[in-house]
């Protein structure tokens, strides 16, 4: 096991998959010469050349279209959308084209493409560079939506995503890029669609995604001082969702809190709470609680953004509410 950082694990995953498979290439805005706006693709141009590491114009529709056409004709593109907010410029290509091609063409084509992007508030990047929009894409049949929280997960899941034959939206979180963690020395992948128990516990199930996994783990330490033992579940993949992992945990604890960074209204938490209500209602000892962002754009200023971002304290409060 070697220690590395989240962003480095992304870079390593890309490099290893490009070495392993000549049909993998990387394209996007500033990914080649500049090495990516967050350095995710640093060094790839030198190693693989401009044919395989392609700087594109600022053209999100064009970038995703490039990936779709290349994937349909035998390549395995990994394209970068610099900030998740910018994917709105390419919604047709993601939602009407990539997601539906296999189904509407009668099941013949494979579409092995990965759209890497990053989400998240916390860097005072303002309303157009900070959103988490995973629920939009989870709502579209045909796409897979992956949201890794740890260094090991980001590497194993990115490698698995590149090897997958479906279109995948791979959402990193910009506040996690500096996170340290260990990764196996050998080649490894993690299964898409399988969640992970980040901490076992018997009193309350906290289902948390991306950055909120770390907030939940901090909340767990605080709550253990008060004698409350929470179980932290990280679905890792938003779609397909590891329903059984979540439901089994809720059946064990009888209590659930869903913690995610995107806007609470009509977000990922609504899906998970509804699923628990539909399939584990009789096991519940208290109503499911959701922790998400308030219903407003992500603000720029420090105090406003701090007030916006859900975190550890909100999880602690929600857990106390369900154990009352």
């Amino acid at each position: 096991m070697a220690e590395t950082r989240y962003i480095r694990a992304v870079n390593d995953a890309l490099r290893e998959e490009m070495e392993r498979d000549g049909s993998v290439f990387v394209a996007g805005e500033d990914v080649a010469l500049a090495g990516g706006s967050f350095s995710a693709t640093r060094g790839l141009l030198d190693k693989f050349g401009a044919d395989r590491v392609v700087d594109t114009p600022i053209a999100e529709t064009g970038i995703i279209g490039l990936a779709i056409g290349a994937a349909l004709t035998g390549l395995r593109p990994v394209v970068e959308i610099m900030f998740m907010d910018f994917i709105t410029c390419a919604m047709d290509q993601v939602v009407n084209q990539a997601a539906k091609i296999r189904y509407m063409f009668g099941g013949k084509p494979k579409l092995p493409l990965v759209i890497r992007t990053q989400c998240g508030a916390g860097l005072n990047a303002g309303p157009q560079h900070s959103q988490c929009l995973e629920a939009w894409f989870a709502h579209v049949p045909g796409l897979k939506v992956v949201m890794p929280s740890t260094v090991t997960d980001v590497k194993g899941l990115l490698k698995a995503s590149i090897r997958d034959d479906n279109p995948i939206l791979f959402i990193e979180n910009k506040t996690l890029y500096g996170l340290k963690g260990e990764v196996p020395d050998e080649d490894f992948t993690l299964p898409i669609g399988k969640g992970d128990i980040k901490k076992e516990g018997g009193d309350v199930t906290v289902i948390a995604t991306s950055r909120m996994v770390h907030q939940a783990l901090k909340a767990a330490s605080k709550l253990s001082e008060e004698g409350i033992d929470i179980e932290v579940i990280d679905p890792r993949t938003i779609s397909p969702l590891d329903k059984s992992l979540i439901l089994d945990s809720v059946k064990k604890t009888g209590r659930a809190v869903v913690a995610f960074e995107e806007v609470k209204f009509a977000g990922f938490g609504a899906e998970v709470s509804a699923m628990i209500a539909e399939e584990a209602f009789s096991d519940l000892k208290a109503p499911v609680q959701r922790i998400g962002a308030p219903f407003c754009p992500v603000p720029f200023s420090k105090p406003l953004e701090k007030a916006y971002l859900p975190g550890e304290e909100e999880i602690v409060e929600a857990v106390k509410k369900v154990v009352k």
Partner: protein
Amino acid sequence: MSKLDKESKISLLKTMLTIRKFEEKVSENFAAGQIPGFIHLSIGQEAVSAGACFNLRKEDYISTTHRGHGQCIAKGVEIRPLMAEIFGKSTGYCKGRGGSMHIASLDYGMLGANGIVAGGIPMAVGAAFSAKYRKTDQVVASFFGDGATGEGAFYESMNIASILKLPIIFVCENNKWAEFSPQQVHMDIENVAQRAKAFGNVAAETIDGNDVELVVDAMERAIERARSGNGPTLLECITTRFHGHYEGDPQKYRPKEDIEGVRSKDPIVRYKTKLKEEGVLDDAGAEALEKEVEGIIEDALQFAKESPEPDSKELLNDVYVN
């Protein structure tokens, strides 16, 4: 001038006739309530499809639009599953999931018709990138209408293809109508080909798209440019939409003289007359060709009508590759 031999000329006429008779049958059956959904026909525009695909190889790629039956046929896809898909049957190219607007046949390099205006252009650029990456000498022809040149996807695609010098031909079928709006409503220039000037490395031509041999010639130049690594071409083919935007469109927006005048531009009548004048085809030959094509279409129609509807148990199949 065209260097086409007799066999090629007859083949071009046969492709145009196949498209025409195929779509006339679709029109009839749609009017009779046999076909669900929306249908957009390319009757009058056959010379563009036939001419543009004439020098493409089976392994070359095309993408097309909601008005794409003609390009499918010209690229060589099988007529039976094409017709069956339009009828929504399980034997169709997409097992009845796509319908007229979403036909694809990867075996013939047909990367898909598209229900979104300009939606197929970006992925056609991706296929051209792939051909260059894999160092094959495949080329791509991406078909779209004049209306699509109002979409951002068109400009992003042209720009990327130009920068990366990709082997692609952007084929604009300019029938002068963007759905229900005439060209002057959605374009402040005379010719779509003028748009290529914005990109530097895109060659452009405007031709009479109702003259099939002119289309063949222009495509030959564009294909040569693409295969030899000299990048994209924007080929504008001026043509004529005989029917409305969709089948059943009463075309109230269209001046009477425009509707009445379309038949005088018929590319098939024009080409048949030319071939007779050249002595390539006589009346008996023309009649035999029509009979042959009618047989092919009739067979496909029967196949489509007799094919089963998809089983509702298949609803959730193929959303993902497992």
